[in-house]
């Protein structure tokens, strides 16, 4: 049985602690919006775990699809159905300020963690090979993390400061552990270090499988996503917009019937009450009317009858 190096163990247990803490908080939080935010922390931490397990492409796709798409959907749903249902009175509670503090803390720890994993060449699959400007992105991340931490330290209460200092020490411990177990000097040139081309091999493998052996499932998945999108649109349509026949004939169906010379006298007589007043003039002047005026074209068969 294989054993983990100390750096891997520290990284794994930190990620596991963040996943479990935010997952539990997502189930326990009193407000629905906090629950959604904790779900986001969990998703990012799971993406970090994917990167740690040597498949950075799946991790990046997890962040793109889950955090970028599904979480946004959830936030919009919270906005639409908010009101009396955001508070669940009999569920176990986490205090609101504590939730906010823990959320900021775990988000900051997540960013530090992602930075460490992205920049750590060798032991962990490095994104530096995939991204030419990986170090620039990492430094931007670090700047964002430090700015957020400083702002949080400035704003928060004593408990929040204590929790944040614990988080900072945890992040420092993590960075130190990874830096101690991996060759840290190759930040600028990651291709010189580590097992050569691990992420590229993963991309090759994934592409071969996805567009080779699993291509039928891939296409069916595309159809499923399209069907789900159309179905969600149909289900979430406003209640007043049921597809009744009069609405259809008044707007889209009238011009369609006029241009295609389709005569349906029963539907046209029922949907166009003011048309017979103007219809004799147009019917007498032009026996074969042009298709562009919709009311004239529609009222013509009724005038003939």
């Amino acid at each position: 049985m294989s054993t983990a190096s100390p750096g891997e163990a520290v990284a794994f247990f930190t990620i596991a602690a963040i996943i479990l803490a935010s997952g539990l908080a997502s189930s326990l939080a009193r407000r629905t919006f906090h629950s959604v935010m904790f779900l986001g922390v969990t998703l990012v931490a799971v993406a970090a775990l994917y990167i740690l397990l040597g498949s950075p492409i799946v991790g990046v796709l997890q962040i793109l699809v889950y955090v970028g798409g599904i979480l946004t959907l959830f936030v919009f749903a919270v906005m639409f159905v908010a009101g009396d249902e955001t508070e669940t009175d009999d569920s176990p509670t986490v205090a609101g300020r504590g939730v906010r503090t823990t959320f900021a803390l775990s988000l900051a720890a997540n960013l530090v963690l992602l930075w460490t994993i992205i920049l750590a060449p060798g032991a962990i699959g490095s994104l530096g090979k995939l991204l030419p400007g990986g170090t620039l992105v990492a430094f931007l991340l670090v700047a964002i993390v430090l700015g957020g931490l400083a702002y949080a330290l400035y704003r928060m209460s004593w408990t929040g400061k204590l929790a944040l200092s614990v988080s900072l020490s945890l992040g420092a411990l993590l960075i130190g552990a990874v830096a101690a177990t991996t060759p840290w000097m190759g930040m600028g040139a990651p291709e010189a270090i580590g097992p050569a081309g691990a992420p590229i091999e993963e991309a090759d493998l994934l592409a071969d499988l996805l567009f080779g052996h699993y291509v039928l499932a891939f296409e069916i998945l595309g159809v499923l996503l399209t069907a789900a999108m159309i179905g969600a649109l149909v289900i979430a349509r406003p209640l007043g917009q049921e597809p009744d026949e009069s609405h259809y004939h008044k707007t889209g169906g009238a011009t369609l019937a006029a241009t295609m010379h389709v005569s349906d006298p029963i539907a046209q007589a029922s949907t166009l009450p003011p048309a017979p007043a103007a219809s004799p003039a147009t019917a007498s002047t032009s026996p074969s009317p042009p298709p562009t005026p919709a009311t004239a074209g529609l009222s013509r068969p009724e005038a003939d009858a």
Partner: protein
Amino acid sequence: MIPLVWVTGLSMLLFACGVFGLLMQKSALRVLIAVELILNAAGINFVAFAHYHQNGDGLVFTLFNIALAAAEAAVGLGILIHSYRHVRSVDVTKSTALRW
């Protein structure tokens, strides 16, 4: 290399968190969030076994898992918004029209 037992244990605990939220919450939105946690636990298992066996099939199934979660979230949230318009509530214990 991280032992498989650690990762599967983490996946099990995350699954437990999801099932706990699924059973504890009344709001349909919270139930959907718990379902997302459960789907992520399944994805962790897929990636863990793909990593352990050095096989790409698990990664492909993780991608399918993510796409299916997207479809599920879209349709589920559409149903939720529609049901909110009907009964002005997302409480799953109040939607009793189909209950025997």
